[in-house]
């Protein structure tokens, strides 16, 4: 009977431990990108919102493609992502109701200090990517349909280059921003990163910023409220409150107030763009 007693003890302990976790006040699920969550932005600003409204925000951090897919299945109440093309498709499919830009920052090309493609300091991102291509220097691609991945593919295409035809120097890792930076650091490779994740990333090894400041590298974060006609189960009112708060003066000030090492990771929507 010992086995049965052991099982009973397990069950009792487990039930006691799970139940307080499940007794929740009001909450919404925000499908968002790894860049805003891993960089610490959401951890910094969402508690302010929760304190003010009593609404807990549960963040699912995924790539933009996956976050939009999660929302289109009705599994999230609100979306915060950064891929203009994928967002437009999402809106056109009738999933989204209102889309609003709430913050921006920029992408950067990071690469090894040794800079085998000689791109350091270039101002033209297309020329820099062409140089990486010509040098066949190792390049890590997210390959996960995230906002960053979509931008990378757009940049190659803008210069009539097709990464599907690139050689073994082009490494499609199919992972998140952190995984891509870890891989690039380990292989001394170039990769595109959003500035927020880069600034809060702690395993840079030889990686430094190679190219920044091109207008084509601007990175817009949009919050999208879902269309209740298509998604009747979502918590529409609470989601609307969060969307409104993010765009409000208070929310924008909170975004502007998040810094790492004195550097602003995200600019509020109204900040002048370069």
């Amino acid at each position, binding site marked *: 009977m010992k*086995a049965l007693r052991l*099982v009973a003890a397990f069950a009792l302990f487990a039930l006691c*431990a*799970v139940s307080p976790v499940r007794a929740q006040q009001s909450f919404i699920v925000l499908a968002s990108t790894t860049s805003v969550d891993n960089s610490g932005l959401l951890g910094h600003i969402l508690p302010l919102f929760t304190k003010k409204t009593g609404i807990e925000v*549960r*963040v699912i951090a995924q790539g933009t493609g996956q976050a939009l897919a999660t929302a289109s299945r009705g599994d999230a109440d609100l979306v915060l992502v950064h891929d203009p093309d994928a967002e437009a498709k999402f809106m056109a499919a009738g999933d989204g109701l209102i889309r609003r830009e709430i913050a921006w920052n920029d992408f950067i090309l990071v690469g090894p200090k040794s800079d085998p493609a000689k791109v350091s300091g270039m101002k033209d991102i297309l020329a820099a990517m062409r140089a990486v291509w010509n040098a066949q220097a190792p390049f890590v691609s997210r390959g996960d349909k995230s906002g960053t991945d979509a931008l990378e593919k757009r940049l190659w295409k803008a210069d009539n280059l097709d990464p599907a035809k690139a050689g073994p120097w082009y490494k499609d890792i199919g992972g998140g921003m952190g995984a891509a*930076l870890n891989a690039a650091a380990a292989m001394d490779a170039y990769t595109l990163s959003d500035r927020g994740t880069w600034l809060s990333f702690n*395993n*840079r090894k030889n990686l430094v910023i190679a190219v920044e400041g091109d207008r084509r590298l601007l990175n817009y974060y949009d919050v999208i409220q879902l269309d209740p006609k298509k998604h009747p189960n979502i918590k529409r009112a609470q989601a609307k409150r969060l969307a409104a708060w993010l765009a409000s003066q208070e929310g924008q000030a909170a975004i502007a107030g998040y810094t790492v090492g004195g550097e602003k990771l995200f600019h509020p929507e109204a900040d002048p763009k370069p």
Partner: protein
Amino acid sequence: MSDFSEAFALALAMLARFDANLLSIVVLSLSVSLSAVAIASCIGLPAGAALAIYRFPGQASLVLLVNAMLGLPPVVVGLVAYLLLSRAGPLGSFGLLFTPGAMVIVQTVLVAPIITAIVHRAMEEAWARYGDEFRILGAPRIRAIPHLLVIGQRAVLTALLAGFGRAISEVGAIIIVGGNIAGVTRTMTTTIVLETSKGNLALALALGIVLISISIAINGLAFGLAGRKYRS
């Protein structure tokens, strides 16, 4: 090597100051995995014993299937559960996706075959040895199940610990159906994935050390409890 020494120092520091955040993550990991083991043993203990003492058509295939399920890829189980539990799926109305409940479900699916298979193997031997006695007594076979489980309690303990090992170390399934939400569905293993992706390798490794220590402690506790009986 500095990575490793840093990780060990961090792990010790975390354990020493009894970090509240870490504690809640540990409690969630344990409660999810122990719940899964508890539910899976309610299925696996009787099922494993029954498979050993009953003969019926298709029994061999069923045993084969259970053993094959030991190799279930957690991500696939997670993905299937995700599609079922999603709002757009057939079980969406329960609102279980991205909750600890969903994580218990997927881990139960992963653990139940392990317990069933190990118990089945041990009960087969026990039944070969004691089966005749039961048959001579003329009692229905179902009455033999609890007796066999008591006779084979060491194997039962092994089955429970193996199941627990699978559950507590698993990440592929729970990160899909749990969503790795801070304070709600973030466990030891999903935290390790997250910290690795942030480049906090020493912290991730330190959490791994804490996880392994807890596993050792649980196994020690179980063996200690079981061992006391044999000594006394």
